[in-house]
Protein backbone atom coordinates (compact mmCIF):
# COMPACT_ATOMS: atom_id res chain seq x y z
CA UNK A 1 0.00 0.00 0.00
CA UNK A 2 1.10 3.51 -0.72
CA UNK A 3 -0.03 4.74 2.64
CA UNK A 4 2.08 2.23 4.49
CA UNK A 5 5.35 3.82 3.46
CA UNK A 6 4.06 7.28 4.26
CA UNK A 7 2.84 6.41 7.72
CA UNK A 8 6.21 4.99 8.58
CA UNK A 9 7.88 8.41 8.73
CA UNK A 10 5.27 10.99 9.70
CA UNK A 11 7.49 13.00 12.00
CA UNK A 12 10.02 13.65 9.27
CA UNK A 13 7.45 14.86 6.84
CA UNK A 14 5.22 17.20 8.76
CA UNK A 15 6.96 20.47 8.11
CA UNK A 16 7.71 20.24 4.44
CA UNK A 17 4.84 18.01 3.54
CA UNK A 18 2.42 18.57 0.71
CA UNK A 19 -1.32 18.90 1.00
CA UNK A 20 -1.58 15.17 0.50
CA UNK A 21 0.41 14.56 3.64
CA UNK A 22 -1.84 16.92 5.54
CA UNK A 23 -4.92 15.12 4.28
CA UNK A 24 -3.39 11.85 5.31
CA UNK A 25 -2.50 13.15 8.76
CA UNK A 26 -6.09 14.31 9.17
CA UNK A 27 -7.39 10.89 8.21
CA UNK A 28 -5.09 9.27 10.73
CA UNK A 29 -6.07 11.66 13.47
CA UNK A 30 -9.80 12.01 12.90
CA UNK A 31 -10.54 8.34 12.06
CA UNK A 32 -7.84 6.45 13.91
CA UNK A 33 -7.03 8.87 16.75
CA UNK A 34 -3.34 8.41 16.03
CA UNK A 35 -1.51 10.68 18.52
CA UNK A 36 1.59 10.91 16.31
CA UNK A 37 -0.54 12.34 13.48
CA UNK A 38 -2.11 14.79 15.93
CA UNK A 39 1.26 15.96 17.10
CA UNK A 40 2.47 16.33 13.54
CA UNK A 41 -0.55 18.49 12.70
CA UNK A 42 -0.12 20.65 15.78
CA UNK A 43 3.54 21.22 14.96
CA UNK A 44 2.78 21.96 11.37
CA UNK A 45 0.13 24.59 12.14
CA UNK A 46 1.81 26.11 15.18
CA UNK A 47 3.46 28.84 13.07
CA UNK A 48 0.04 29.85 11.78
CA UNK A 49 -1.37 29.82 15.32
CA UNK A 50 1.53 31.84 16.59
CA UNK A 51 1.17 34.41 13.82
CA UNK A 52 -2.51 34.84 14.68
CA UNK A 53 -1.77 35.24 18.39
CA UNK A 54 0.82 37.83 17.50
CA UNK A 55 -1.84 39.92 15.81
CA UNK A 56 -3.31 40.53 19.24
CA UNK A 57 0.05 41.09 20.84
CA UNK A 58 -0.63 44.79 21.20
CA UNK A 59 -3.42 43.94 23.53
CA UNK A 60 -2.84 44.12 27.23
CA UNK A 61 -2.59 40.34 27.70
CA UNK A 62 0.81 38.66 27.96
CA UNK A 63 1.77 36.95 24.70
CA UNK A 64 2.09 33.51 26.34
CA UNK A 65 -1.56 33.70 27.43
CA UNK A 66 -2.63 34.70 23.94
CA UNK A 67 -0.68 31.83 22.40
CA UNK A 68 -2.26 29.39 24.79
CA UNK A 69 -5.77 30.53 23.88
CA UNK A 70 -4.92 30.44 20.17
CA UNK A 71 -3.62 26.89 20.62
CA UNK A 72 -6.93 25.81 22.12
CA UNK A 73 -8.53 27.20 18.95
CA UNK A 74 -6.12 25.18 16.84
CA UNK A 75 -7.00 21.95 18.70
CA UNK A 76 -10.70 22.61 18.16
CA UNK A 77 -10.10 23.28 14.48
CA UNK A 78 -8.12 20.04 14.14
CA UNK A 79 -11.09 18.11 15.49
CA UNK A 80 -13.78 19.87 13.51
CA UNK A 81 -12.13 20.27 10.11
CA UNK A 82 -13.84 18.35 7.37
CA UNK A 83 -11.45 17.75 4.47
CA UNK A 84 -14.29 16.43 2.28
CA UNK A 85 -15.65 19.96 1.94
CA UNK A 86 -12.72 20.97 -0.19
CA UNK A 87 -11.47 23.95 1.80
CA UNK A 88 -7.90 24.13 2.95
CA UNK A 89 -7.37 23.59 6.64
CA UNK A 90 -5.90 27.05 7.19
CA UNK A 91 -8.93 28.80 5.75
CA UNK A 92 -11.02 26.85 8.25
CA UNK A 93 -8.61 27.28 11.15
CA UNK A 94 -8.15 31.08 10.98
CA UNK A 95 -11.75 31.97 11.93
CA UNK A 96 -11.82 29.18 14.53
CA UNK A 97 -8.64 30.35 16.23
CA UNK A 98 -9.59 34.03 16.10
CA UNK A 99 -13.05 33.14 17.40
CA UNK A 100 -11.48 31.39 20.38
CA UNK A 101 -9.33 34.42 21.16
CA UNK A 102 -12.26 36.81 20.94
CA UNK A 103 -14.36 34.64 23.20
CA UNK A 104 -11.52 34.62 25.69
CA UNK A 105 -11.32 38.40 25.68
CA UNK A 106 -15.06 38.71 26.23
CA UNK A 107 -15.17 36.03 28.92
CA UNK A 108 -12.52 37.62 31.05
CA UNK A 109 -14.41 40.90 30.99
CA UNK A 110 -11.57 42.80 29.51
CA UNK A 111 -13.23 46.13 29.16
CA UNK A 112 -14.12 46.14 32.83
CA UNK A 113 -10.78 45.39 34.42
CA UNK A 114 -7.78 47.62 34.20
CA UNK A 115 -5.60 45.88 31.64
CA UNK A 116 -2.82 44.27 33.61
CA UNK A 117 -0.19 44.15 30.87
CA UNK A 118 -0.63 47.83 30.05
CA UNK A 119 -0.21 48.85 33.62
CA UNK A 120 2.91 46.78 34.17
CA UNK A 121 4.42 48.07 30.97
CA UNK A 122 3.66 51.67 31.93
CA UNK A 123 5.40 51.19 35.27
CA UNK A 124 8.43 49.70 33.54
CA UNK A 125 8.58 52.59 31.11
CA UNK A 126 8.34 55.07 33.93
CA UNK A 127 11.19 53.58 35.90
CA UNK A 128 13.34 53.15 32.77
CA UNK A 129 12.72 56.78 32.01
CA UNK A 130 14.03 57.81 35.41
CA UNK A 131 17.08 55.57 35.13
CA UNK A 132 17.96 56.88 31.68
CA UNK A 133 17.33 60.49 32.66
CA UNK A 134 19.75 60.14 35.55
CA UNK A 135 22.32 58.52 33.29
CA UNK A 136 22.13 60.99 30.45
CA UNK A 137 21.10 64.13 32.25
CA UNK A 138 18.06 64.60 30.02
CA UNK A 139 14.88 62.74 29.20
CA UNK A 140 15.33 59.75 26.85
CA UNK A 141 13.72 59.33 23.44
CA UNK A 142 11.12 56.67 22.74
CA UNK A 143 13.74 54.72 20.76
CA UNK A 144 16.14 54.73 23.69
CA UNK A 145 13.40 53.48 25.99
CA UNK A 146 12.44 50.78 23.47
CA UNK A 147 16.04 49.54 23.18
CA UNK A 148 16.54 49.63 26.95
CA UNK A 149 13.33 47.72 27.69
CA UNK A 150 13.45 45.45 24.63
CA UNK A 151 10.03 46.63 23.55
CA UNK A 152 9.12 48.08 20.19
CA UNK A 153 8.51 51.78 19.87
CA UNK A 154 4.76 51.37 19.49
CA UNK A 155 4.57 49.58 22.83
CA UNK A 156 6.50 52.41 24.48
CA UNK A 157 4.25 55.04 22.91
CA UNK A 158 1.18 53.12 24.06
CA UNK A 159 2.64 52.86 27.55
CA UNK A 160 3.27 56.62 27.63
CA UNK A 161 -0.35 57.11 26.60
CA UNK A 162 -1.54 54.69 29.26
CA UNK A 163 -0.06 56.83 32.02
CA UNK A 164 -1.31 59.87 30.19
CA UNK A 165 -4.83 58.51 30.14
CA UNK A 166 -6.96 61.08 31.78
CA UNK A 167 -10.56 61.99 31.89
CA UNK A 168 -11.86 65.43 31.34
CA UNK A 169 -12.34 66.77 34.82
CA UNK A 170 -15.60 68.21 35.83
CA UNK A 171 -15.59 70.94 38.43
CA UNK A 172 -17.27 68.69 40.92
CA UNK A 173 -14.70 65.98 40.55
CA UNK A 174 -12.47 65.49 43.57
CA UNK A 175 -9.25 67.38 43.31
CA UNK A 176 -6.34 65.32 42.07
CA UNK A 177 -3.79 64.30 44.61
CA UNK A 178 -5.83 62.00 46.79
CA UNK A 179 -4.23 58.77 47.87
CA UNK A 180 -2.27 57.91 44.79
CA UNK A 181 -0.21 60.93 43.96
CA UNK A 182 -0.27 63.78 46.41
CA UNK A 183 1.85 62.49 49.23
CA UNK A 184 5.23 62.63 47.59
CA UNK A 185 5.36 66.35 47.03
CA UNK A 186 2.24 67.85 48.49
CA UNK A 187 3.00 70.28 51.27
CA UNK A 188 6.56 71.15 50.42
CA UNK A 189 5.68 73.51 47.61
CA UNK A 190 2.94 75.52 49.23
CA UNK A 191 5.19 78.52 49.70
CA UNK A 192 5.77 78.79 45.96
CA UNK A 193 2.35 80.37 45.70
CA UNK A 194 3.76 83.66 46.94
CA UNK A 195 5.68 84.01 43.73
CA UNK A 196 2.59 84.67 41.72
CA UNK A 197 2.30 88.23 40.68
CA UNK A 198 -1.15 89.26 39.76
CA UNK A 199 -1.20 91.06 36.47
CA UNK A 200 -4.05 92.99 35.01
CA UNK A 201 -6.41 90.39 33.75
CA UNK A 202 -10.03 89.76 33.36
CA UNK A 203 -11.33 88.95 36.80
CA UNK A 204 -13.16 85.87 35.62
CA UNK A 205 -9.96 84.37 34.25
CA UNK A 206 -7.93 85.15 37.33
CA UNK A 207 -10.54 83.34 39.31
CA UNK A 208 -10.07 80.30 37.08
CA UNK A 209 -6.46 79.76 38.09
CA UNK A 210 -7.45 80.02 41.72
CA UNK A 211 -9.50 76.89 41.26
CA UNK A 212 -6.53 74.83 40.18
CA UNK A 213 -4.94 73.11 43.17
CA UNK A 214 -1.86 74.91 44.48
CA UNK A 215 0.73 72.37 43.43
CA UNK A 216 -0.62 72.10 39.88
CA UNK A 217 -0.70 75.88 39.75
CA UNK A 218 2.88 75.85 40.85
CA UNK A 219 3.80 73.38 38.13
CA UNK A 220 2.04 75.47 35.50
CA UNK A 221 4.03 78.46 36.70
CA UNK A 222 7.33 76.58 36.48
CA UNK A 223 6.58 75.33 32.97
CA UNK A 224 5.03 78.41 31.39
CA UNK A 225 6.41 81.37 33.32
CA UNK A 226 9.82 80.17 34.52
CA UNK A 227 9.98 78.02 31.39
CA UNK A 228 11.59 75.04 33.02
CA UNK A 229 11.50 71.75 31.13
CA UNK A 230 9.25 69.00 32.45
CA UNK A 231 12.33 67.06 33.55
CA UNK A 232 13.57 70.05 35.55
CA UNK A 233 10.16 70.43 37.17
CA UNK A 234 10.14 66.73 37.98
CA UNK A 235 13.54 67.00 39.65
CA UNK A 236 12.53 70.08 41.58
CA UNK A 237 9.44 68.59 43.16
CA UNK A 238 10.58 65.00 43.32
CA UNK A 239 8.14 63.20 41.03
CA UNK A 240 8.59 61.59 37.62
CA UNK A 241 8.42 63.50 34.35
CA UNK A 242 5.50 61.31 33.34
CA UNK A 243 3.60 62.49 36.39
CA UNK A 244 4.47 66.09 35.60
CA UNK A 245 3.19 65.51 32.08
CA UNK A 246 -0.05 64.02 33.31
CA UNK A 247 -0.70 66.72 35.89
CA UNK A 248 0.10 69.54 33.46
CA UNK A 249 -2.23 68.03 30.92
CA UNK A 250 -5.02 67.66 33.37
CA UNK A 251 -4.69 71.08 34.93
CA UNK A 252 -4.56 72.84 31.56
CA UNK A 253 -7.72 71.01 30.65
CA UNK A 254 -9.33 72.03 33.89
CA UNK A 255 -8.23 75.61 33.41
CA UNK A 256 -9.77 75.68 29.95
CA UNK A 257 -13.03 74.28 31.23
CA UNK A 258 -13.11 76.86 34.02
CA UNK A 259 -12.33 79.72 31.67
CA UNK A 260 -14.93 78.59 29.19
CA UNK A 261 -17.55 78.28 31.90
CA UNK A 262 -16.93 81.70 33.36
CA UNK A 263 -16.85 83.32 29.93
CA UNK A 264 -20.16 81.77 28.97
CA UNK A 265 -21.63 82.87 32.30
CA UNK A 266 -20.55 86.44 31.67
CA UNK A 267 -21.97 86.30 28.17
CA UNK A 268 -25.28 85.27 29.56
Amino acid at each position, binding site marked *: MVSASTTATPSLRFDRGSDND*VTLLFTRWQRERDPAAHEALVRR*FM*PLTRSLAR*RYDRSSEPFEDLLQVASVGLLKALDRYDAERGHSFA*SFAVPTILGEMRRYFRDCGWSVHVPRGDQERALKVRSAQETLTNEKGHAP*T*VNQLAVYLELDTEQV*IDALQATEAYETMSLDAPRPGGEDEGTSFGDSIGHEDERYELVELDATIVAALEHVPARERSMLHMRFVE*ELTQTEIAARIGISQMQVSRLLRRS*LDQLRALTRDSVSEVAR
Partner: protein
Amino acid sequence: MPEPLPNVRLQLLNTPENVVLVRGMLMGLAEALRIGESDLNDIRTAVTEACNNVVLHAYSGDPGPMEVDVHIDSGTVTVLVRDSGSGIGTRREGAQAFADDAEESFDVSAVAPDYPPPGIGLHVIETLAHKVEFRRPPSGGTEVRMRFSLPVEALDPCSDERGLATLALSETPSTAMFSIAPLSLARTILPRLVCALAARAHFSTDRISDAQLLADALAAHAAGAISGGQLSVGVNVGPREIELHIAPLTSGAAQHLLEDFELDRLGSVVEKLTDRRHVATIGPYEALTLGLRDSR
Protein backbone atom coordinates in the same frame (compact mmCIF):
# COMPACT_ATOMS: atom_id res chain seq x y z
CA MET B 1 -25.98 60.08 -3.98
CA PRO B 2 -22.52 61.30 -3.08
CA GLU B 3 -20.95 59.54 -0.15
CA PRO B 4 -20.95 61.57 3.09
CA LEU B 5 -17.57 62.92 4.13
CA PRO B 6 -15.77 60.92 6.79
CA ASN B 7 -15.39 61.74 10.49
CA VAL B 8 -11.71 60.97 10.26
CA ARG B 9 -9.41 60.85 7.27
CA LEU B 10 -5.72 60.06 7.46
CA GLN B 11 -3.64 60.61 4.33
CA LEU B 12 -0.34 58.81 4.63
CA LEU B 13 2.35 56.99 2.73
CA ASN B 14 2.28 53.22 2.83
CA THR B 15 5.09 52.73 5.36
CA PRO B 16 4.99 50.31 8.32
CA GLU B 17 5.48 53.18 10.78
CA ASN B 18 2.35 54.83 9.36
CA VAL B 19 0.38 51.69 10.16
CA VAL B 20 1.36 52.41 13.77
CA LEU B 21 -0.17 55.86 13.30
CA VAL B 22 -3.42 54.35 12.05
CA ARG B 23 -3.53 52.12 15.13
CA GLY B 24 -2.97 55.14 17.36
CA MET B 25 -5.87 56.89 15.65
CA LEU B 26 -8.10 53.88 16.36
CA MET B 27 -7.13 53.98 20.04
CA GLY B 28 -8.09 57.64 20.23
CA LEU B 29 -11.33 56.84 18.44
CA ALA B 30 -12.11 54.09 20.93
CA GLU B 31 -11.45 56.46 23.80
CA ALA B 32 -13.84 59.06 22.39
CA LEU B 33 -16.58 56.55 21.56
CA ARG B 34 -16.05 54.42 24.66
CA ILE B 35 -15.42 51.32 22.61
CA GLY B 36 -14.27 48.49 24.88
CA GLU B 37 -10.87 46.88 24.75
CA SER B 38 -11.95 43.68 23.02
CA ASP B 39 -13.92 45.46 20.27
CA LEU B 40 -11.00 47.84 19.84
CA ASN B 41 -8.68 44.87 19.39
CA ASP B 42 -10.89 43.41 16.68
CA ILE B 43 -11.02 46.71 14.81
CA ARG B 44 -7.32 47.32 15.25
CA THR B 45 -6.38 43.86 14.07
CA ALA B 46 -8.63 43.95 10.99
CA VAL B 47 -7.56 47.46 9.98
CA THR B 48 -3.90 46.58 10.52
CA GLU B 49 -4.30 43.67 8.09
CA ALA B 50 -5.86 45.92 5.47
CA CYS B 51 -3.09 48.51 5.91
CA ASN B 52 -0.37 45.87 5.82
CA ASN B 53 -1.72 44.80 2.47
CA VAL B 54 -1.30 48.35 1.17
CA VAL B 55 2.23 48.47 2.61
CA LEU B 56 3.29 45.16 1.11
CA HIS B 57 1.36 44.76 -2.11
CA ALA B 58 -0.42 47.85 -3.42
CA TYR B 59 2.59 49.44 -5.06
CA SER B 60 4.89 46.47 -5.57
CA GLY B 61 7.22 47.70 -2.87
CA ASP B 62 7.26 51.32 -4.02
CA PRO B 63 5.97 54.16 -1.88
CA GLY B 64 2.41 55.25 -2.56
CA PRO B 65 -0.57 56.83 -0.84
CA MET B 66 -2.53 55.02 1.86
CA GLU B 67 -5.78 56.63 2.92
CA VAL B 68 -7.86 55.61 5.92
CA ASP B 69 -11.39 56.95 6.48
CA VAL B 70 -13.66 56.40 9.45
CA HIS B 71 -17.41 56.93 9.29
CA ILE B 72 -19.38 56.86 12.52
CA ASP B 73 -23.08 56.19 12.18
CA SER B 74 -25.65 55.07 14.66
CA GLY B 75 -24.66 51.53 15.63
CA THR B 76 -21.78 51.18 13.19
CA VAL B 77 -18.22 52.25 12.71
CA THR B 78 -17.00 51.85 9.13
CA VAL B 79 -13.32 51.95 8.30
CA LEU B 80 -12.13 52.30 4.71
CA VAL B 81 -8.57 51.58 3.73
CA ARG B 82 -7.76 52.83 0.28
CA ASP B 83 -4.77 52.73 -2.04
CA SER B 84 -4.37 54.18 -5.48
CA GLY B 85 -2.29 51.41 -6.96
CA SER B 86 -2.83 51.31 -10.68
CA GLY B 87 -1.29 49.75 -13.74
CA ILE B 88 -1.33 46.10 -14.62
CA GLY B 89 1.66 45.01 -12.57
CA THR B 90 0.48 46.67 -9.41
CA ARG B 91 -3.02 45.41 -9.78
CA ARG B 92 -2.01 41.88 -10.33
CA GLU B 93 0.47 41.76 -7.49
CA GLY B 94 -1.30 43.90 -4.98
CA ALA B 95 -4.88 44.91 -5.15
CA GLN B 96 -5.81 42.13 -7.49
CA ALA B 97 -4.04 39.51 -5.43
CA PHE B 98 -5.90 40.65 -2.36
CA ALA B 99 -9.26 40.66 -4.10
CA ASP B 100 -8.55 37.27 -5.65
CA ASP B 101 -7.84 35.82 -2.26
CA ALA B 102 -11.46 36.40 -1.46
CA GLU B 103 -12.50 33.61 -3.75
CA GLU B 104 -9.56 31.29 -3.43
CA SER B 105 -8.70 29.31 -0.41
CA PHE B 106 -4.98 29.66 -0.06
CA ASP B 107 -2.36 27.02 -0.35
CA VAL B 108 -1.55 25.31 2.93
CA SER B 109 1.93 24.44 1.73
CA ALA B 110 2.67 28.19 1.74
CA VAL B 111 2.75 28.08 5.55
CA ALA B 112 6.29 29.04 6.40
CA PRO B 113 7.55 28.94 9.96
CA ASP B 114 6.63 32.10 11.82
CA TYR B 115 5.47 33.92 8.76
CA PRO B 116 1.80 34.42 7.99
CA PRO B 117 0.97 33.01 4.58
CA PRO B 118 -0.55 35.34 2.00
CA GLY B 119 -4.31 35.45 2.21
CA ILE B 120 -4.42 34.95 5.96
CA GLY B 121 -5.02 38.68 6.31
CA LEU B 122 -8.23 38.40 4.39
CA HIS B 123 -9.54 35.61 6.60
CA VAL B 124 -8.66 37.72 9.61
CA ILE B 125 -10.57 40.72 8.27
CA GLU B 126 -13.59 38.63 7.34
CA THR B 127 -13.67 37.03 10.77
CA LEU B 128 -13.35 40.27 12.71
CA ALA B 129 -15.44 42.76 10.72
CA HIS B 130 -19.19 42.34 10.53
CA LYS B 131 -19.22 43.19 6.87
CA VAL B 132 -16.40 43.52 4.37
CA GLU B 133 -16.53 44.91 0.85
CA PHE B 134 -13.85 45.31 -1.75
CA ARG B 135 -14.25 48.07 -4.26
CA ARG B 136 -12.41 49.43 -7.23
CA PRO B 137 -13.26 53.13 -7.28
CA PRO B 138 -13.35 54.66 -10.79
CA SER B 139 -10.40 56.81 -9.73
CA GLY B 140 -8.27 53.66 -9.51
CA GLY B 141 -6.81 51.60 -6.72
CA THR B 142 -8.59 49.36 -4.27
CA GLU B 143 -10.74 50.11 -1.27
CA VAL B 144 -11.43 47.72 1.60
CA ARG B 145 -14.52 48.72 3.51
CA MET B 146 -14.93 47.15 6.94
CA ARG B 147 -18.07 47.65 8.95
CA PHE B 148 -18.17 47.00 12.68
CA SER B 149 -21.45 46.89 14.61
CA LEU B 150 -20.96 48.72 17.88
CA PRO B 151 -23.13 50.61 20.35
CA VAL B 152 -22.13 54.08 19.15
CA GLU B 153 -24.09 57.23 18.41
CA ALA B 154 -23.85 58.90 15.03
CA LEU B 155 -21.50 61.90 14.93
CA ASP B 156 -21.52 64.83 12.56
CA PRO B 157 -19.02 64.19 9.79
CA CYS B 158 -16.88 66.78 8.05
CA SER B 159 -19.12 69.21 6.26
CA ASP B 160 -16.60 70.73 3.94
CA GLU B 161 -14.38 69.16 1.28
CA ARG B 162 -11.86 71.96 1.64
CA GLY B 163 -10.55 70.65 4.92
CA LEU B 164 -9.73 67.39 3.24
CA ALA B 165 -7.56 69.23 0.76
CA THR B 166 -5.20 70.74 3.32
CA LEU B 167 -2.28 68.99 1.76
CA ALA B 168 -2.71 71.01 -1.39
CA LEU B 169 -2.94 74.20 0.66
CA SER B 170 0.33 73.82 2.45
CA GLU B 171 3.45 74.62 0.51
CA THR B 172 5.62 71.84 1.86
CA PRO B 173 4.79 68.18 1.48
CA SER B 174 3.43 66.63 4.66
CA THR B 175 4.50 63.42 6.33
CA ALA B 176 0.93 62.86 7.41
CA MET B 177 -2.40 64.60 7.00
CA PHE B 178 -5.40 64.34 9.27
CA SER B 179 -8.92 65.68 9.05
CA ILE B 180 -11.10 65.08 12.07
CA ALA B 181 -14.71 66.09 12.82
CA PRO B 182 -16.31 66.79 15.20
CA LEU B 183 -13.76 68.31 17.58
CA SER B 184 -14.76 65.93 20.36
CA LEU B 185 -12.98 63.25 18.32
CA ALA B 186 -9.97 65.49 17.70
CA ARG B 187 -9.50 65.84 21.44
CA THR B 188 -8.64 62.18 21.83
CA ILE B 189 -7.18 61.42 18.40
CA LEU B 190 -4.93 64.39 17.63
CA PRO B 191 -2.72 64.10 20.76
CA ARG B 192 -2.06 60.43 20.01
CA LEU B 193 -1.09 61.13 16.43
CA VAL B 194 1.13 64.06 17.35
CA CYS B 195 2.75 62.03 20.12
CA ALA B 196 3.60 59.18 17.73
CA LEU B 197 5.04 61.64 15.19
CA ALA B 198 7.11 63.43 17.85
CA ALA B 199 8.51 60.04 18.87
CA ARG B 200 9.40 59.43 15.22
CA ALA B 201 11.26 62.77 15.18
CA HIS B 202 13.40 61.43 18.07
CA PHE B 203 11.98 63.83 20.62
CA SER B 204 12.71 63.14 24.28
CA THR B 205 9.69 62.09 26.33
CA ASP B 206 9.83 65.53 27.85
CA ARG B 207 9.22 67.26 24.53
CA ILE B 208 6.77 64.58 23.37
CA SER B 209 4.62 65.57 26.29
CA ASP B 210 4.87 69.23 25.24
CA ALA B 211 3.76 68.25 21.73
CA GLN B 212 0.83 66.52 23.31
CA LEU B 213 -0.08 69.61 25.33
CA LEU B 214 0.00 71.57 22.08
CA ALA B 215 -2.33 69.09 20.38
CA ASP B 216 -4.69 69.33 23.36
CA ALA B 217 -4.70 73.11 23.04
CA LEU B 218 -5.40 72.96 19.30
CA ALA B 219 -8.29 70.57 19.69
CA ALA B 220 -9.72 72.63 22.55
CA HIS B 221 -9.55 76.02 20.90
CA ALA B 222 -10.04 75.39 17.20
CA ALA B 223 -13.83 75.56 17.24
CA GLY B 224 -14.14 79.21 16.20
CA ALA B 225 -11.32 79.17 13.69
CA ILE B 226 -11.85 76.17 11.47
CA SER B 227 -13.78 76.01 8.30
CA GLY B 228 -16.27 73.21 7.72
CA GLY B 229 -16.39 71.83 11.24
CA GLN B 230 -13.30 69.70 10.95
CA LEU B 231 -9.79 70.17 12.22
CA SER B 232 -7.30 69.52 9.44
CA VAL B 233 -3.64 69.22 10.25
CA GLY B 234 -0.65 68.39 8.08
CA VAL B 235 2.49 67.30 9.90
CA ASN B 236 6.09 67.33 8.70
CA VAL B 237 8.65 65.33 10.60
CA GLY B 238 12.34 66.21 10.49
CA PRO B 239 15.26 65.32 12.71
CA ARG B 240 14.26 66.52 16.18
CA GLU B 241 11.69 68.78 14.65
CA ILE B 242 8.01 68.60 13.82
CA GLU B 243 5.89 71.14 12.06
CA LEU B 244 2.11 71.33 12.23
CA HIS B 245 0.14 73.08 9.48
CA ILE B 246 -3.41 73.86 10.49
CA ALA B 247 -5.53 74.85 7.51
CA PRO B 248 -7.86 76.02 6.15
CA LEU B 249 -8.71 78.58 8.81
CA THR B 250 -11.20 81.33 8.22
CA SER B 251 -9.70 84.73 7.45
CA GLY B 252 -8.25 86.41 10.54
CA ALA B 253 -8.71 83.27 12.58
CA ALA B 254 -5.07 82.23 12.91
CA GLN B 255 -4.08 85.22 15.05
CA HIS B 256 -7.26 84.86 17.02
CA LEU B 257 -6.43 81.22 17.58
CA LEU B 258 -2.97 82.09 18.90
CA GLU B 259 -4.49 84.59 21.33
CA ASP B 260 -7.10 82.10 22.41
CA PHE B 261 -4.35 79.99 23.82
CA GLU B 262 -3.63 82.65 26.43
CA LEU B 263 -4.40 81.13 29.75
CA ASP B 264 -4.63 83.29 32.81
CA ARG B 265 -1.27 84.49 34.12
CA LEU B 266 0.53 81.86 32.10
CA GLY B 267 0.63 83.80 28.85
CA SER B 268 0.18 82.02 25.58
CA VAL B 269 0.70 78.35 26.27
CA VAL B 270 1.27 77.74 22.57
CA GLU B 271 4.00 80.36 22.43
CA LYS B 272 5.85 78.65 25.26
CA LEU B 273 5.48 75.20 23.77
CA THR B 274 6.53 76.03 20.20
CA ASP B 275 9.73 77.36 18.67
CA ARG B 276 8.15 78.87 15.59
CA ARG B 277 4.75 80.28 14.63
CA HIS B 278 3.79 81.49 11.22
CA VAL B 279 0.55 82.64 9.65
CA ALA B 280 0.15 82.41 5.87
CA THR B 281 -2.69 83.62 3.71
CA ILE B 282 -3.83 81.22 1.06
CA GLY B 283 -6.55 82.75 -1.09
CA PRO B 284 -9.53 83.41 1.15
CA TYR B 285 -8.10 81.24 3.92
CA GLU B 286 -5.31 81.21 6.43
CA ALA B 287 -2.88 78.53 7.46
CA LEU B 288 -1.18 78.45 10.84
CA THR B 289 2.21 76.77 11.04
CA LEU B 290 3.60 75.73 14.41
CA GLY B 291 7.15 74.38 14.71
CA LEU B 292 8.49 72.37 17.64
CA ARG B 293 12.11 71.41 18.14
CA ASP B 294 13.82 69.31 20.74
CA SER B 295 17.07 71.16 21.27
CA ARG B 296 18.43 69.31 24.25
